[in-house]
């Protein structure tokens, strides 16, 4: 799966939880889930669970803690799907 495809799928997953819609226009690796998209931290758990379903992977507590940006999420997904 290409990096672009992962990021595209991620964008679809996060969309329902985004409070700052302008953040979606410029959705890239540096995009910060809390700061740029204003996803509330409780909903970030739902994002992670949706990522698990979409990519058929398990995400542990440490990975969750390090998942602050789109790029972080992409790296974790890439590592897990090998």
């Amino acid at each position: 799966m290409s990096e672009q495809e992962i990021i595209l799928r991620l964008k679809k997953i996060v969309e329902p939880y985004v409070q700052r819609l302008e953040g979606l226009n410029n959705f890239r690796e540096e995009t910060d889930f809390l700061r740029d998209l204003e996803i509330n931290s409780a909903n970030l758990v739902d994002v992670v669970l949706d990522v698990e379903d979409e990519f058929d992977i398990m995400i542990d507590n440490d990975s969750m803690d390090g998942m602050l940006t789109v790029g972080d999420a992409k790296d974790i997904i890439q590592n897990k799907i090998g």
Partner: protein
Amino acid sequence: MHSDQIISRLPYSSPFLFVDAISEVNENSITGSYYFSPELDFYKGHFKTEPVTPGVILTECMAQIGLVCFGIYLLNSENSEQDQPKIAMTSSDVEYLLPVPPGEEVRVVSEKIYYRFNKLKCRVKMFNAEEKLVCRGELAGMILASKSGSNE
């Protein structure tokens, strides 16, 4: 963990405690009850002419049983040593189907949707004394543990 042990760990007291008893609890669900005494203060104003239990209070009752009591039980099962966990409601999406008059006993049933990364999300239903569904919805909360416990 018994009903009384769970209730004794709740951070609420009268007039904001809306749990009388927990009748059943396991890893997947919890059932509890509460009697809405006609003496409760809010009936004087909601409404001026006809007392009805406010929806926010029904939601609070569902949350105290379905999220907080359940969360205390789940944390305890993880052998967490905390005796006073902090649980903050993070979202509620509830439909109100029937009014609850003063003097009614309600039963709340909460089923776990997931408990991951310290977030507990549940499908919660409230039934009246006639076993009719009075409200239903989804509630979620974060269990703020000061010790970092795993919930995998």
